[in-house]
Structures are given as structure tokens and as C-alpha cells.
């Protein structure tokens, strides 16, 4: 088993390397770092621009392949280059990764757990009010882009929640915490949570909708299966059979969806960070494209490719854990 996991891992690693290479080439040819300096006032001299660009490995007059070799060489040694502000990319990336991972972890955990639960309820009570209600909301949420949902959440929080429910937690929509706040750790935690709710909702809702749809379909398929009939023929009551034999089996396809949904989640997190002013990887990406900051863009590409790889591996492991048919003895 371990051998095959390793082989699978190697395959993923090659994919990540290639994807990163491709991403670097695209970014390095598409983004023009020189324009940033040329647009400055007063305009620096051509030689000083070139010198600066060469130092940062951003000179578009250097052949792309050469720039890439240098970047890749540095990368292997653990150096991801410098940002435009001439700070090491890795240093900032460490902080920002933490921010993004908090959001992504919460999003995928809550999203999958709540989504699966809602899907099962919808399937078991097919055509009931609960089913229609959750289905309708799942559709609305799936049809709402994350950025719009984020804006609407802000809108709702400010106009209604904070305005009309004054005694409750005040919901913040900018940043991760109030910078000046001091006090006990409880106060600080409470502040954190008050900042966390809206952005997390912003990505969890979409994930819940996504999982609940697929789980519902998967469960409905299982509900018509022969083995469920066998379980009942043994003397299990329908409800027990559904939970004990149905749910376990209906979860299997979800492992695959985990991998698919992760890409979606990553994109969603980008919007959420940007809109709620979280200084994560997504926000960094958007800002650095505007700044033509190729090294940062490359770093984000590495980050997302590695995350998708990890999600893929987790999905494989989940699949093997859930389905004895794919396990290797």
C-alpha cells in the first residue's frame, strides 16, 4: 500500500512541477514588470531599470527559459525570490499561508460535514418540505458567485444584524482582528471569532450547497440498491438499514468530490480574502497581478498546486478508507 501511495505521490509531484513550470512561463511572458518602473515619476534610467529587474530576475529582455532556470534553481535551494518591495517572498508567504489555511480548513471541514448531513436529510425525506427547502437554498447558493455572496453578507451584517441585534456579537467584515484590542485571551478569541464568521460563511455556504447536492444524489442511488433490500430482508428496519448500510456506501463518491471541490474552494477563498481584507495568499495573488509581481505570482501558483496535490492525496486515502474494493491487500 505504501509503495503505491509513494508512486501516486511521485506522479502528483511531477504534475505539480510541470504545472508550476507552465504557470511560471505564462506569468513571466504575460506580466510585464518593466512597465512598473517605466511608469514611475520621475522615470528611472534604462540602465537602472535593467539592473533592478535583473536583480529581481524580472527582466523581460532576458529569455524566459533563462529566468526560469534561475528561479527554479533558487527555488530548489529554498529561495523563492523577492517581491517588488524587495522583501523575501518566502517570509511573507509564511504569514499569508497561515491566514489562507485557516480559512480553507474551516471551509472544507464545515462545508463537507454540513453538506453531507443536509444531503442525507434531503434524500431520506425526499419530496418533503425539508427536502424542497434545502434543495431550493442549495440551488440559490450554487448560483451565487462567492464575491456577490460576500458582498451580500457584508450588506446584511451591517444593515440588519449589527444594526438591529445590538446585544449579539458584532460582526466585523474587515481583517482578522481589531489591531488595537487588548485584554484577556477570551476577549481576543471572541474578537477573532467575530471577524471569522462572515468570511467563513462566505465560503462554507457554497461548499455546503455543493456537497449536499451530490450527497443527496448519491444517497438516492443507494436507496434503490439491492443490498439495502437485503438488509431489510434480514429484519433491519428501513431507517436503520438506511443509516447503517446506505450512508456508509453513499459516502464513497464524496471522496472524489473532495478533490474536485478543492479547486473551487481555493478560488472562493481568493475572493473572500480580497473582499474581507484578509491578508492571505489569494489577496496577495490579485494584488501582485496588478503589480506585475512575477515572483509572487509564481509562489502562489506553487502554493495552490501543492494544495491541490494534497487534496488529491487525501481524496485517494479517503476513497481507500471508505471502499474496501479499492484497497490493496
Amino acid at each position: 500500500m505504501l509503495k503505491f501511495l509513494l508512486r501516486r505521490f511521485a506522479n502528483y509531484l511531477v504534475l505539480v512541477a510541470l504545472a508550476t513550470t507552465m504557470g511560471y512561463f505564462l506569468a513571466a511572458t504575460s506580466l510585464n514588470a518593466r512597465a512598473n518602473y517605466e511608469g514611475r515619476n520621475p522615470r528611472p534610467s534604462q540602465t537602472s531599470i535593467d539592473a533592478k529587474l535583473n536583480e529581481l530576475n524580472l527582466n523581460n529582455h532576458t529569455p524566459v527559459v533563462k529566468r526560469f532556470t534561475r528561479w527554479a534553481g533558487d527555488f530548489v535551494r529554498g529561495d523563492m525570490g523577492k517581491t517588488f518591495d524587495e522583501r523575501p517572498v518566502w517570509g511573507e508567504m509564511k504569514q499569508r499561508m497561515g491566514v489562507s489555511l485557516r480559512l480553507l480548513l474551516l471551509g472544507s471541514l464545515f462545508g463537507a460535514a454540513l453538506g453531507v448531513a443536509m444531503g442525507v436529510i434531503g434524500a431520506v425525506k425526499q419530496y418533503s418540505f425539508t427536502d424542497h427547502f434545502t434543495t431550493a437554498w442549495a440551488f440559490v447558493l450554487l448560483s451565487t458567485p462567492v464575491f456577490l455572496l460576500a458582498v451580500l453578507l457584508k450588506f446584511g451584517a451591517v444593515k440588519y444584524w449589527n444594526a438591529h441585534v445590538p446585544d449579539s456579537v458584532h460582526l466585523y467584515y474587515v481583517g482578522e482582528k481589531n489591531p488595537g484590542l487588548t485584554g484577556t485571551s477570551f476577549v481576543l478569541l471572541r474578537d477573532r471569532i467575530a471577524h471569522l464568521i462572515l468570511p467563513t460563511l462566505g465560503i462554507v455556504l457554497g461548499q455546503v450547497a455543493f456537497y449536499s447536492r451530490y450527497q443527496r444524489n448519491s444517497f438516492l442511488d443507494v436507496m434503490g440498491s439491492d443490498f439495502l433490500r437485503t438488509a431489510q430482508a434480514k429484519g433491519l428496519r428501513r431507517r436503520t438499514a438506511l443509516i447503517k448500510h446506505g450512508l456508509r456506501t453513499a459516502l464513497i463518491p464524496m471522496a472524489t468530490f473532495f478533490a474536485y471541490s478543492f479547486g473551487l474552494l481555493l478560488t472562493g477563498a481568493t475572493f473572500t480574502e480580497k473582499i474581507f481584507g484578509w491578508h492571505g495568499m489569494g489577496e496577495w495573488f490579485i494584488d501582485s497581478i496588478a503589480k506585475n509581481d512575477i515572483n509572487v505570482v509564481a509562489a502562489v501558483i506553487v502554493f495552490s498546486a501543492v494544495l491541490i496535490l494534497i487534496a488529491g492525496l487525501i481524496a485517494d486515502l479517503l476513497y481507500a478508507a471508505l471502499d474496501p474494493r479499492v484497497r490493496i491487500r
Partner: protein
Amino acid sequence: MEVLREAEVLDPDHETGEIISRGRLVWRRFLRRKSAVAGGVILIALFVVAFAGPHLTRWQYLDQDLSNALQGPSGNHWFGTTQIGQDVFARTMRGLQKSLVIGLLTAFFSTGTAAVVGASAGYFGGWVDRVLMWIVDLLLVLPSFLIIAILSPQFRGKTWLLFVVLLAAFSWMITARIVRGLTLSLREREFIQAARFMGVPSRTIIFRHLLPNMSSFLIIDATLNVGGAILAESGLSFFGFGVQPPDVSLGTLIADGTPSFLTYPWLFLFAGGLLIVAVLAVNVMGDGLRDALDPNSSAVKARTRTK
């Protein structure tokens, strides 16, 4: 739908009875889904409004009514005006047009590519399959959002059709995998084998037997892709990576409206509302189509088979 499934299982010979043509049966099933019908009607209505709407008002989407800047909805400016006096209704209609057209075109190209790539990979197998699926895997490792955002400087000042091509180019992969999975099972079906053993050329088999037999799935997928494409388009446009000014789409309108969303909500609420309604209509219709065309195999089945 469960009722139908059971009846078929319990009475496999029921088709020997009264014969209803497939088209009519599908239509009947579709009509029974009230929400799906509503989705279809709304979608058509949106198209009509998007293209006829601009002719109903005297304002063009770039006109500036400077004396009435930043006003709320009124008889003159139905959806209000922007900071520089542009008519929000005219702009929203223009944006809706763009979003809908981009959605349709992208879905068409994306599903088309997926069908050809997936069917070829599945049918030919061997190295064709390995190479194509490897490309799919590679593209799946990079979220399309990142790639298009990176490439966005390239199409600044160029036609939005380029944007459509990009959107389509990075959204066909998952569908292609499913099509490949369907092809793998169809390929073993006897009617394909019969054609092969009769000496029918591969291209004919793919286009005459394989793809038509998954047309249900392709239609459903294309429909749902319209929604996905509209969402992707608006998301990219929201950050300025999509439709470029002076042209507008629902995404850019929302982006323009959000900074002042608390004080001047009409700037984004109409565009936002229409965006949700449009995508919702498409999704609901797609779901209804799936039930009507393909009552026995949900997308779940198709998808799990692909891995």
C-alpha cells in the same frame, strides 16, 4: 422520478406496450418539473429583456446624465444612476447581454472540446488516452481562475471573444473525464463492437454512435456549464481580469458598485440580483433536463466512474 425507475425495473417489458416517442416522453417529464419550466421561461425572458431592454429607455449604457449623478431609481433612470451619471438600467442590460452571451458561447465550446477530447481518449485508449488524460490532470492542478487572471493583461484592449476562448479552454477538463468514462463503457457495448467488426471507420463511430448516445449528458452538461461560465466570467470581471472597460458585464458592474454598497446599494443590487436569477434559472433548468433526459443515471454515477 423514483416511481418511473421502479416501474421499469419491475416491468422490463413495459416498452412493448404503448409506445411513446422518446422526444415526447422527455418533453412530458420536463414539463412536469415546474421549477425547470420556470427556469426555462425566466431564461428566455432574460434574453428578451437583455436585448430589447436597451431600446426601451432613451439612455445608452455610456451616456452621462451629469445633472442626475448618483440618484436612486426613478421614472427617468429606472435603476438609478452612477457616480458619473450613467444610467444603471442601460448598463445592467448591457452587462446582462454580455454575461449571457459569454456564458452560452463558453459552454458551447467547452462542452464541444470535452466531447471530442473525452471520446477520443476513451475510444482509442492506449497512448492517445494517456496523453490526453495527462493534459487534463495537468490543467486540473492549476485552477483556471489563476491562469486566466495571469493571462488577463494579454487581452486588455482586445475583443472579449478572446476571453471566451480562454474561459472555454480552461473549463472542459472535468467534463472530458466524464465523457471518457462514458465512452469506456459505451465502447464495450455491442452496437459499437458490431460497427467496429463491420469495418466502420473510427471517426464515424465516434460521431455517429458514441457522441449521439451521450447527447443527454452533453446537453445537460452544456446547460450547467452556461451557469458555470457566467459565474467564472463575472468573478474574473469583478477583479478586472475579464471584460474590459468601457465594455461592461454583470461582474464589472458589481465590482463598480461594491465600494459604496452601503450608501448606494442600487449600484450593485440590480446587477447582483439579475446575476443570481440568471444562473439560478440555468441551473434549475439543467437539473430538470437531467431528470427528463436521464432519469436513471445521475451525474454522481457518471462522475464516480471517471476516477
